[in-house]
């Protein structure tokens, strides 16, 4: 069976161009770039090029790019460094819709390390309460960390505006741009951010490679302590192959950004309007005017997400019922709860996240499958009667 993959906010297919770029470095040029031989140095050169391409995607300097093992490590490292830079500051601020890599870390810091954690809420559309954010900025704030775009709903926070206000007060600002990268333009200079996290596997590079941008001149404390790799900012032998792959993926992402905001966005809009048109009692989650071009979070009243996913799966359609980071529980996600999405549709929410590999035929097949899946499930739902919610 053909796979229809619409789970790109969870992870993406490694692009053929990226695989091709990486292959020679497994069994051929496998040297350690820190080594004192031409064989290792050849890899060193490729890594310098890759660092440049990553920097270009976000308008940074290559020196400002630290390679990590994933978005989670980048997020953890950024926060850890800020806390080390300001050991006396006890307030840390984020939102209540962050990825677990930030949210669970902040909760750990609150519960185990006594930090004063502010979780700024969002409204029903998923937009941040900016007044509350600005009011919570204090002299003893060590860091503000806010995601650029939400993984579940695609809602975009106004990072440049926020970052300016936060850094104006001399407070460090970090943004988790794992979902924003490759989908909307990112310019770290224009946006005044001090630190920014990326993850390779969301932009068609392999899993297990991430980036932390650290603004030049900023004092940085390494999270992984070891050798002198990454100019002493991250120990551990460089993941050469994946770094080289990520460089290519960033180059492609920059080229494909226009496609993302035309072709992919049109497909997403088509899928959304078809589902709204053909299925009753359906609602789209998140600020429609302010959303990643590839993401559709959509709730179907009176049915349950896992059941929908299994019916999609039978047709080879991959989607998600919320964050991919599930604990195995069927509770509605913390993001939907924070947005006060009513239970009736939160439980039945599906996230479709597209890429440029998707086609209109695939969307039609999804719509067809969804129409019949929802019909079947509602026929057996105790909350659905005579074509409406009871």
């Amino acid at each position: 069976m053909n796979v229809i993959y619409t789970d790109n906010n969870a992870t993406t297919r490694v692009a053929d161009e990226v695989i091709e770029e990486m292959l020679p470095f497994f069994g051929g040029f496998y040297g350690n770039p820190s080594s004192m031989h031409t064989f290792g140095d050849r890899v060193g050169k490729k890594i310098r090029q890759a660092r440049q391409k990553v920097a270009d995607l976000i308008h940074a300097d290559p020196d400002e790019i630290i390679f990590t093992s994933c978005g989670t490590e980048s997020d953890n490292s950024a926060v850890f460094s800020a806390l080390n830079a300001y050991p006396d500051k006890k307030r840390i601020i984020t939102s209540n819709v962050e990825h677990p890599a930030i949210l669970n870390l902040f909760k750990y810091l609150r519960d185990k390390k006594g930090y004063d954690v502010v979780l700024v809420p969002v409204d029903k559309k998923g937009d941040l309460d900016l007044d509350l954010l600005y009011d919570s900025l204090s002299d003893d704030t060590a860091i503000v960390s806010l995601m650029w775009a939400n993984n579940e709903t695609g809602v975009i926070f106004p990072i440049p505006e926020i970052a300016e206000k936060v850094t104006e007060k001399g407070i460090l600002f970090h943004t988790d741009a794992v979902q924003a990268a490759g989908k909307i333009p990112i310019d770290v200079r224009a946006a005044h951010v001090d630190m920014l996290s990326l993850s390779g596997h969301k932009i068609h590079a392999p899993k297990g490679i991430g980036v932390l941008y650290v603004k030049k001149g900023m004092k940085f404390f390494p999270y992984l302590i070891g050798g002198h790799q990454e100019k002493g900012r991250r120990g551990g032998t460089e993941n050469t192959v994946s770094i080289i792959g990520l460089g290519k993926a960033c180059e492609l992402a920059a080229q494909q950004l226009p496609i993302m905001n035309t072709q992919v966005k049109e497909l997403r809009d088509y899928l959304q309007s078809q589902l709204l048109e053909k299925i009753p009692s359906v609602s789209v989650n998140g600020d429609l005017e302010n959303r990643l071009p590839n993401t559709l979070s959509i709730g179907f009243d009176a049915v349950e997400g896992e059941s929908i996913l299994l019916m999609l799966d039978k047709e080879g359609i991959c989607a998600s019922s919320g964050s991919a980071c599930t604990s195995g529980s069927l509770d509605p996600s913390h993001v939907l709860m924070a947005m006060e999405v009513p239970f009736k549709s939160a439980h039945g929410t599906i996230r479709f996240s597209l890429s440029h590999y998707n086609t209109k035929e695939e969307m039609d097949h999804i719509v067809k499958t969804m129409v019949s899946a929802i019909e079947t499930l509602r026929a057996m739902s105790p909350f659905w009667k005579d074509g409406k919610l009871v």
Partner: protein
Amino acid sequence: MWEYTDKVKDHFMHPRNVGELKDANAVGETGSLNCGDALKLFLKVDENERIVDASFMTFGCASAVASSSALTEIVKGMTLDEAAKVTNGDIADYLGGLPKEKMHCSVMGKSALQKAIADYRGIQIMEKPGEMVCECFEVTDLEIIDAVKANG
């Protein structure tokens, strides 16, 4: 791995003027075995204080070998007064540049040269200002700062 210019590699693989100069009348020595770098510079100076021949023995990395080789080429034909003005930057320039981390290897050349000149003229090198950071090459922090500044 260090980014060495072709000139550095050439002077490392094919060093000029290696060995003890039998009729040298000025010798300068710097560094030690313990410190990992050492240079012995031999000069033959004529009655007009012109350097007519030069040679070296070096224990050290590729930059140290290349810097020593370059130094002997640079000073040949110079008067001692001219040679006294040779800086480690001149040595690096002659080699088409050295990696930033390797600038100190050329400082060693300058230091041996000054000692050789002092040896010929029979004078004591004056105490240098600054804090000694490398006892072996007798390099001071000020010299390193100078070297770094001069070489960007």
